[in-house]
């Protein structure tokens, strides 16, 4: 009888540990998704695409897209991320023509024509965006993107958030991290696509 009680106790303990662990994991997964946005008002924020067309920031956030912030002088993080996103979309058959937006955090150097030239290898898949320092700051703050201009010997560089945002109907669905490989990126975008209308 005592042996039976002990067995029941061990089974109960293991079950409780399992339930609590699953609960914690679930909370962490949910934390990553549907991330809240900044409180800045975007209604007057207008950006400029690489064809010199003005785009209202709020309009841009309505449609499903992948948004990545960087700058064309970025040595490896930006080109690697853009290449990864581009291949990821190519590998997804029904990618619903998802657009990748590359938002420059360096409007001083990244004029529309520079962006156009930089993004030319990605053809129509990636749209370059720039704008005034003020508007870009508001837009980045709204999407909780951090960036800092830092002086270096030969000029300046920009330290910035390295993750890409999966955006739909004005909400952040999920983020693709710099360390996410192609497999993980494909999984995240497929999951995103299955949730958008």
């Amino acid at each position: 009888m005592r042996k039976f009680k002990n067995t029941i106790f061990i089974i109960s303990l293991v079950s409780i540990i399992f339930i609590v662990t699953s609960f914690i994991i679930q909370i962490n997964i949910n934390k990553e998704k549907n991330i809240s946005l900044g409180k800045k008002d975007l209604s007057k924020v207008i950006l400029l695409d690489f064809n010199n067309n003005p785009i209202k920031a709020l309009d841009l956030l309505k449609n499903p897209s992948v948004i990545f912030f960087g700058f064309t002088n970025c040595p490896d993080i930006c080109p690697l991320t853009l290449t990864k996103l581009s291949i990821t979309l190519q590998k997804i058959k029904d990618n619903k023509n998802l657009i990748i937006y590359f938002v420059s955090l360096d409007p001083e150097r990244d004029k529309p024509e520079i962006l156009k030239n930089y993004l030319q290898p990605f053809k129509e898949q990636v749209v370059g965006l720039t704008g005034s320092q003020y508007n870009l700051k508001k837009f980045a703050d709204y999407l909780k993107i951090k960036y800092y201009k830092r002086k270096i010997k030969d000029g300046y560089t920009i330290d910035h958030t390295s993750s890409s945002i999966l955006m739909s109907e004005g909400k952040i669905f999920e983020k693709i991290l710099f360390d996410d490989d192609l497999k993980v990126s494909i999984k995240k975008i497929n999951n995103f696509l299955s949730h958008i209308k």
Partner: protein
Amino acid sequence: MYLNKLSNLLIFSISLIFLIFSKVNAKTEDIIINVNGLIFKNPQIVYKDVNAKMVAGYFELENTNNFDDKLLSVKGDISNKIELHNTKKHDGVMKMYKIESGIDIKKNNSLKFEPGKYHLMIMSVNKKILEEEYLLSLYFQKSKKIDINFKAISMKNKLEMAHSH
């Protein structure tokens, strides 16, 4: 007679399979260069597109010697501005910085130059990058100058190769 033909056909088939298999394997084979106890694995220059003015250099370095060494600088014809860099992530923000004092490579230890970590920053590239080899000279504190051929590979191909493994 008939048996002889069959056996020849069998040998031919096996040879063909072996040849195809070795070719497939050759594509994914690691490039390993050992220079006086310093082992360089898969030295690569990775570029966004052929017109890229800024490219990165990656490789694995193993010091099998019984003395510590230090990578001090890198030079090459491809650019007159090649720097040692590292990237550190803090609060989701990537911060890349130049390493002025060189990179230590301890005895019987290895070091990886890879995206988002240690890498060679090759700036103001003076030619179109093609999928060929580019000679870079690596200067070490003790091992002095070591010339290594870095194979240029597009980011697209690098990512696809990593994905297929």
